[in-house]
């Protein structure tokens, strides 16, 4: 029986359109996986010696333990975003003479071998081996390793149980940030406290059994939950979310493009794929902190351009690069309606422009890092509005990939073609290079003015550019209809 299941899984995996779509992307993903594994392995082997060297008076194992809380919570957050629940397509199996228990156990066991559970082991196993080699108590180190494997498994089943519950996710973030803050201000060392628990496992190997109980309990919860769902009810009565109608009357001031703007706003908040893109806004906004807090970048003005373009344009790039694929599932209908491409594209332009201005305003606090930063961000905003919006909409006319709006965004390359990767170059690298060159040849002020000039020129020629872009869309209309009709 298990052999049958495995065979089905194998076929499902390799025959999925996802796999067949692009060898290139798969290789890229493979490299990522290998990279992570290799890094973990290196840290696992070298970690002990590095810690010993840096903190000679402390025990490396205790140090590692005191950070485990962050690792575990971080792992859970990572899983929440990335890990897909291992759902086997059980519908066709239900009417066959297969014991339902078996199906459920198989699904659960399968999830144990998920790649997400393997990553951690690349660190824990070599680290434990190094501990033993360096004269740590063998039983203790093995018990510690055993506990870590069980912790990883618990995380796996916990994630399964949580099942993409947003409240739990917020809870995890709170623990992570809150734990760090109270440790930093020396209120309470939560991570250290949890670390002591792991120290105790090393001292008393018998405690490792507690983790075994934990895994067992979580597994059972999962089993009970799933066993109840091996009925068609789960498919038929898929919880239908109560639709929230929204009037969005404020968009009426945009006149004849208002219906499209309304539609795009609803598109953004009502679909999984777009909703997870909205998270990117926060990331983009905080992107500057990575650079500006480091003194080495303080006098590298071209970095300001990178941050400026990215942080004011994060939505522009995320949303813009999939125009018109966002509307791919009903593109035929749009094309048979009495609308002009111009109105359709204009609404996209306005939405992107508003986002750019809004993100700039939210990013004004960056002035803390100097007025130059703000000046560059302002120029970047104008450049984004004048140049990048047009470039990205032009690039969109080459879009031939359908998007399924119900899929999540992270690690989802649906709708991504080579053009989407290439378009990042003119959007970010070009202004950066131009700015760098001019500020090196002339001075900072001239470089800012150049960006502003390009941006304002784009705004001034907006109408002409739109005519050009519209023409391009009209030319590719049939190709797009045909392509959007194909399931991936």
């Amino acid at each position, binding site marked *: 029986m298990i052999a049958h299941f495995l065979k089905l899984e194998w076929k499902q995996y390799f025959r999925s359109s996802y796999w067949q779509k692009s060898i290139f992307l798969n290789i890229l993903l493979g490299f990522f996986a290998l990279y992570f594994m290799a890094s973990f392995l290196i840290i696992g082997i070298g970690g002990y010696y590095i810690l010993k060297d840096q903190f000679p008076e402390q025990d490396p194992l205790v140090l590692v333990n005191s950070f485990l809380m962050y690792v575990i919570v971080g792992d859970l957050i990572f899983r929440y975003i990335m890990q897909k629940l291992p759902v086997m397509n059980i519908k066709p199996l239900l009417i066959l003479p297969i014991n339902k228990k078996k199906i459920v156990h198989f699904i659960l066991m399968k999830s144990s071998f998920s790649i997400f559970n393997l990553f951690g082991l690349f660190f824990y196993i070599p680290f434990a081996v190094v501990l033993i080699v360096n004269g740590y108590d063998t039983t203790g180190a093995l018990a510690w390793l055993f506990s870590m494997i069980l912790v990883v498994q618990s995380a796996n089943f916990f994630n399964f149980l949580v099942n993409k519950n947003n409240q739990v996710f917020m809870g995890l973030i709170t623990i992570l940030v809150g734990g760090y803050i109270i440790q930093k201000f020396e209120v309470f060392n939560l991570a250290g406290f949890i670390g002591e628990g792991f120290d105790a496992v090393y001292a008393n190997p018998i405690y490792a059994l507690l983790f075994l109980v934990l895994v067992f309990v979580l597994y059972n919860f999962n089993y009970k939950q799933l066993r109840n769902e091996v009925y068609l009810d789960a498919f038929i009565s898929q919880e239908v979310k109560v639709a929230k109608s929204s009037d969005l009357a404020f968009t009426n001031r945009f006149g004849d493009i208002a219906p499209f703007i309304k539609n795009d706003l609803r598109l953004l908040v*009502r679909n999984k794929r777009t909703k997870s893109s909205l998270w990117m806004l926060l990331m983009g906004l905080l992107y500057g902190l990575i650079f500006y807090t480091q003194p080495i970048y303080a006098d590298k003005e071209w970095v300001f351009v990178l941050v400026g373009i990215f942080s004011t344009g994060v939505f522009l790039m995320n949303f813009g690069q999939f125009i018109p694929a966002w509307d791919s599932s009903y593109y035929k209908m749009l094309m048979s309606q*009495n609308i002009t491409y111009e109105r359709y594209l204009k609404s996209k332009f306005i939405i992107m422009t508003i986002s750019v201005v809004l993100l700039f305003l939210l990013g004004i606090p960056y002035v803390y890092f100097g007025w130059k930063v703000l000046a560059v961000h302002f120029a970047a905003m104008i450049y984004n509005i004048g140049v990048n919006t047009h470039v990205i909409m032009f690039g969109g006319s080459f879009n031939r990939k359908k998007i399924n*709006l119900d899929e999540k965004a992270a690690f989802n390359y649906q709708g991504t073609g080579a053009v989407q990767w290439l378009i990042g170059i003119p959007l970010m690298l070009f202004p950066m290079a131009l700015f760098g060159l001019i500020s090196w040849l002339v001075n900072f002020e001239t470089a800012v003015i150049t960006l502003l000039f390009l941006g304002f020129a784009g705004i001034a020629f907006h109408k002409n550019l739109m005519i050009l872009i519209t023409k391009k869309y009209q030319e590719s209309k049939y190709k797009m*209809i045909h392509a959007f009709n194909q399931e991936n």
Partner: protein
Amino acid sequence: MIQTTLLSKKYGPVEVLHIDALDIPTGQSFGLVGNNGAGKTTFFNILLDLVRPTTGAIINHDFQVNTTEEWKTFTGSFIDESFLIGYLTPEEYFEFIGDLRGLNKADVKTFLTFFEEFFNGEILNKKKYLRDLSKGNQKKVGIVASMMGNPKVIILDEPFANLDPTTQIRLKKIIKELTENREITVLISSHDLTHVTEVCERIVVLEKGNIVKDMETSAETLQELESYFAV
């Protein structure tokens, strides 16, 4: 009047549609039947300028469909679920289509009251997104949307499929009423010979892209069609 002249569509070497001449006068209820792959949907797609013809053209009320867009103002259509926007509620969808077709909110509301019976209380104010409706209910939304804004031409691909018997009967009534004044041309395709003979005054049979029969509906039509397809 919808005129088709020397129309053909080829995918590679395969010709999927070939119509030398087909005139559909204004106000006619026109039925298209044929087995899978006969070219019914292709014909509708060309008529809606969603697919380009290899040769020939269709002229919809004096406007050639692949060179102008004027015909869009008076042509309503529903081909399949991909005409719906899944993340909208039915009310929002009607409002959107209404906006595009020049109806304001109040107009849309009045328009929808005519279809209360057809909706059978399953569409409006249900607080559901279109993607969460059943296939049949999605179809109801699409069909009604195709009739918004006083179109002169209505194109429906397989309108009866997936509908429950009551709704099928109500749809037939609606289609008959539409063509009563001989101002609205209705084009439908169907696999259900009974329905199509009941609603349509003219039936064209396509086979492998060619017109093989073109007849006025009479008492014998159903039998004739049944014997034709019973091979």
